[in-house]
């Protein structure tokens, strides 16, 4: 790859100061994202994937949150050093975000046209008529029928899938370099999910936007991402190309996750049981000593209980894994 990466995240830590002590929601995360690629971030609830995306948008409320360490560079621009006013010019223009809940992320008292227009007026200085025309164009682009009419609708007049389309129209209005999609299809039906994901992929290709796709659904990742990071308790435990990850998961947690998904391939048998990962995700306030996964790990070794492994690149491929088995 000759182009410099769009996004460079280096040793990012986002911590929260709370009554129970310091919660390390994101702890020493590094990755970079090439132009036009999709990075999938997978993890269970509470693993820090949403805090990671909010950190990139600089939307973590501070306090109680703070960026304890690290750098976030977007096309060489250090986002963490920007003032709030400067950051506002970046949000919605160079980086945009799609949230999980299309019901709550649109303002119910404004017409959707007004909400899309806001982006054009803020970032491109368009006047009312011009931004309205552009909004109609965006709605057409995301596949909404009769955009001239729909632009005057309020959010409650649209279905969940249409609302998510409107969110995507807003997010892509200024042709951002990076789009963060936090569980964009979790609230949608499978057939609508397939439509929305293919829409994101088409638009991404046409506009050259890079995407960070955050989800708990490994199936969505398999079909839509090039790289994937598995997150557990605030840290990346494995980072790999999608194909490598699914054909040969290295970290025991990745392996456990992949096996515990009920699949539609294979035979049905009433006596079949799913292989499970015992236990639950640890609370961030009560992380175990050593490797954060060791209490649930089937391959636990004495060293895992004492010392935490580092995220180590594997010699043969671009992948890295945080596990003593490979160090």
């Amino acid at each position, binding site marked *: 790859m000759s182009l410099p990466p769009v996004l460079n995240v280096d040793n990012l830590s986002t911590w929260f100061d709370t009554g129970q002590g310091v919660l390390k929601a994101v702890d020493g995360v590094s990755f970079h994202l090439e132009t036009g690629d999709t990075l999938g971030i997978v993890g269970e609830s509470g693993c820090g994937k949403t805090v990671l995306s909010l950190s990139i948008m600089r939307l973590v409320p501070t306090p109680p949150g703070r960026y304890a360490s690290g750098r976030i560079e977007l096309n060489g621009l250090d986002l963490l050093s920007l003032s709030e006013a400067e950051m506002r010019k970046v949000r919605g223009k160079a980086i945009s975000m799609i949230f999980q809940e299309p019901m709550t992320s649109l303002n119910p008292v404004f017409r959707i046209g007004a909400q899309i227009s806001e982006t054009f007026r803020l970032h491109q200085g368009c006047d009312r008529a011009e931004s309205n025309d552009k909004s109609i164009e965006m709605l057409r682009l995301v596949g909404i029928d009769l955009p001239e009419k729909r632009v005057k609708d309020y959010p409650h007049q649209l279905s969940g899938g249409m609302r998510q389309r409107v969110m995507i129209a807003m997010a892509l209005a200024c042709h951002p370099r990076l789009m963060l999609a936090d569980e964009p299809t979790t609230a949608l039906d*499978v*057939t609508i999910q397939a439509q929305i994901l293919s829409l994101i992929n088409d638009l991404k290709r046409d506009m050259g936007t890079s995407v960070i796709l955050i989800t708990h659904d490994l199936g969505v990742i398999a*079909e*839509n991402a090039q790289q994937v990071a598995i997150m557990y308790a605030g840290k990346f435990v494995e980072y790999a190309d999608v194909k490598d990850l699914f054909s040969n998961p290295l970290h025991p947690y990745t392996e456990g996750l992949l096996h*515990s998904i*009920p699949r539609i391939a294979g035979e*049905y048998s009433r006596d079949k*049981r799913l292989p*499970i990962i015992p236990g*639950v995700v640890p609370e961030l306030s009560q992380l175990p000593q050593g490797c954060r996964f060791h209490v649930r790990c089937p391959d636990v070794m004495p060293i895992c209980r004492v010392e935490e492994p580092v995220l180590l690149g594997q010699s043969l491929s671009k992948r890295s894994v945080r596990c003593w088995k490979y160090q």
Partner: protein
Amino acid sequence: MTSPLLSVHELHKSFPLQGGFFASTREKCLAVQDVSLTLHKGETLGIVGESGCGKTTLARMIAHMEKPTAGEVRYKGQNIFKFSKTQLKAYRRKTQFIFQDPYSSLNPRMTAGEIIGEPFVIHRSNLAQDIDTNLESIMKMVGLSKDHQRRYPHEFSGGQRQRIGIARAIALRPEIIIADEPVSALDVSVQAQILNLLKDLQDEFNLTYIFISHDMGVIRFISDRIAVMYQGRIVEMASNQQIFENPRHPYTRTLLDAVPRL
């Protein structure tokens, strides 16, 4: 085959739409239309469909939480909507419900022990001391320990709350359990644990399940037979194998094609 434990005959349900006090013509939402099915002892019937297709309304009618506009639900040959009060109480004891959202389906003011013990109190089936001994064994069955008994719902994780919901459902040794999206709010690793638990309990107590889900993978894993619902109707009903290996209805195929492959 023996006679079915439960059968549904041409069940319809419509809800009036908007239409104020003076509205002369009322539009109707046809939530469930002409649904018939049978349920045999010990089997799992999976109901799959997208949101708004009527699967929850159907389940609520089977559980006698909703009255149909037309049609019958027969339990051991008798129409449940013609039951007397005592018959109905007995039916409700035999049919239990597991809800989707483990956060809103537990009373936040009751401890886990009170929640799981409440069915005994309602049905006055056991004396106080029996509840205690029962409670412990039930909690153990669903993977909760005895000291969880005094805790309140907010102290549990999503998976543990769903275990409480399951414990409450199996407390009175029901015959039929209607599970409405019981795992869709859970994480993948927890979902696997709960699905295995449901299968284990089924083996142990010879339970009959009506299992509602929108997730084809989950349906594939748990159902003996599957009904696919679309816009209030069952569009295809067949064995697990047939639905997944030889789907007939175009909508079933659409659903299967839309599932992302690993």
